[in-house]
């Protein structure tokens, strides 16, 4: 907060400090949102330029990080929307892949990155903010401009999809797991399974 006050007073060195402290996190978010390093760097640049120009609108009720993430997410979603519109306006046939019956067996971290890229943009943003950046649901809802319940629902759905991307929808196989003792409560058996 003190740095923001100094930036408002015209201290450009303080703004550089804010950049140094936040740029790698913002870059991480933009890269994972757009999956293109050059585009992510351009967006990071635009985000900090906009942050500097609109620092007067930062009211200080939230953390600076939350405020700049709001700018970042909006920029990324606008960018993705624009990219999608450009792709749809192409006249040449769009390549597509036949979905695989089972997801490819995947290594973990790298494949999670790839799977995140396949999420819908709003789910992707919510998941990254909550699970990668560590913002709680209230903060995610503040950054995304949605209700807390919506932010939670976006994250939960994203996590379910990512789980399937990593493992396939194989939990039903566990039903037949031999090491699971049958549930024998006479009163609640039907409800419990």
């Amino acid at each position, binding site marked *: *907060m*003190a*740095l923001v006050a*100094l930036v408002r007073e*015209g*201290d*450009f*060195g303080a*703004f*550089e*400090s804010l*950049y*140094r*402290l936040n*740029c*790698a*996190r913002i*870059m*991480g978010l933009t*890269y*994972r949102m757009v999956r293109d*390093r050059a585009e*992510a*760097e351009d967006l*990071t*640049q635009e985000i*900090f*330029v906009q942050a*500097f*120009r609109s620092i007067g609108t930062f009211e200080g009720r939230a953390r600076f990080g939350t405020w700049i993430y709001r700018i970042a997410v909006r920029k990324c979603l606008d960018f993705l929307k624009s990219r999608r519109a450009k792709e749809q306006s192409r006249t040449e046939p769009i390549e597509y892949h036949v979905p695989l019956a089972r997801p490819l067996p995947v290594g*973990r*971290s*790298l494949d*999670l*990155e790839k799977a995140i890229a396949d999420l819908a943009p709003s789910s992707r943003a919510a*998941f*990254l903010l909550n*699970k*990668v950046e*560590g913002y709680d649901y209230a903060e995610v809802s503040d950054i995304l401009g949605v209700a807390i319940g919506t932010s939670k629902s976006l994250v*939960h759905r994203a*996590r*379910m999809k*990512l*789980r399937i991307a*990593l*493992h396939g929808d194989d*939990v039903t196989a*566990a*039903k037949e*797991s031999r*090491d*699971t*003792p049958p*549930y024998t*409560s006479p009163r*609640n058996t039907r*409800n*419990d*399974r």
Partner: protein
Amino acid sequence: MSKDGNALSHETYRELLNDFVDKTLRERERLSVEAHLDRCAECRKLAEQLQEVDTLASSMGTIEPATRIWTNIESELDAAASPPSQPAVTSQSVFIPTVQAGWAAWAPRLVAASVLLFLGANLWILRTNDSETTVKDLRVNQIASDLRLAESHYESAISGLQVIFDQSSQTLDPALAVMLQENLELIENSISESRAALDTEPESRVAQDSLLEGLRLKVSLLQNIILLMNEVRKGNGEGAFGLIEGLNTP
């Protein structure tokens, strides 16, 4: 268990698993879900997989943007910004070359020049009376509180890059490898000097900036060396950027 004491349905338990993994369930619900997990392999497996997604996500690292991004921002805001009262060690004073055709021919000189520029600026600043250290207490406290976090990110990146460099430096021309190793040691000395300055003056913003800049320079230099080694090994830059992406997300 539901409020009236009856067990919940399997589907309801399944729906509760997200909240269970988030640790946002009330005690009564949590105990009920735990009891269900004890007897339901399907839900137990689902909960484990959801937890694994969380664990993997939380270990995703930050990604350092190219040094030129700050330079671009400075240029774009140049008209609006007031320059700092004292020259700080910025990306402008440390030139990190990007990999281009023919880089191997001029890289050693540029790397050496950039390291010397950086070291010169650091020494000048660290040995000058620093009035800034006493001017803005709030500011240095803010930076100090984040310094350890930033430092740990850099150290994490450096350790990964250093391993690759140590394992693959034989790819390089021996003379170049020696020079790059010397430059890395020079940067390391400067980092040590900044740390020593911080031990004496923990609130010195200049020393903090110098430390971060030293760490940043080391990361950038290692990244460029690895790019170079890839070019040498493959004859082109194929896969180099993919490698950098991977290195940036430890």
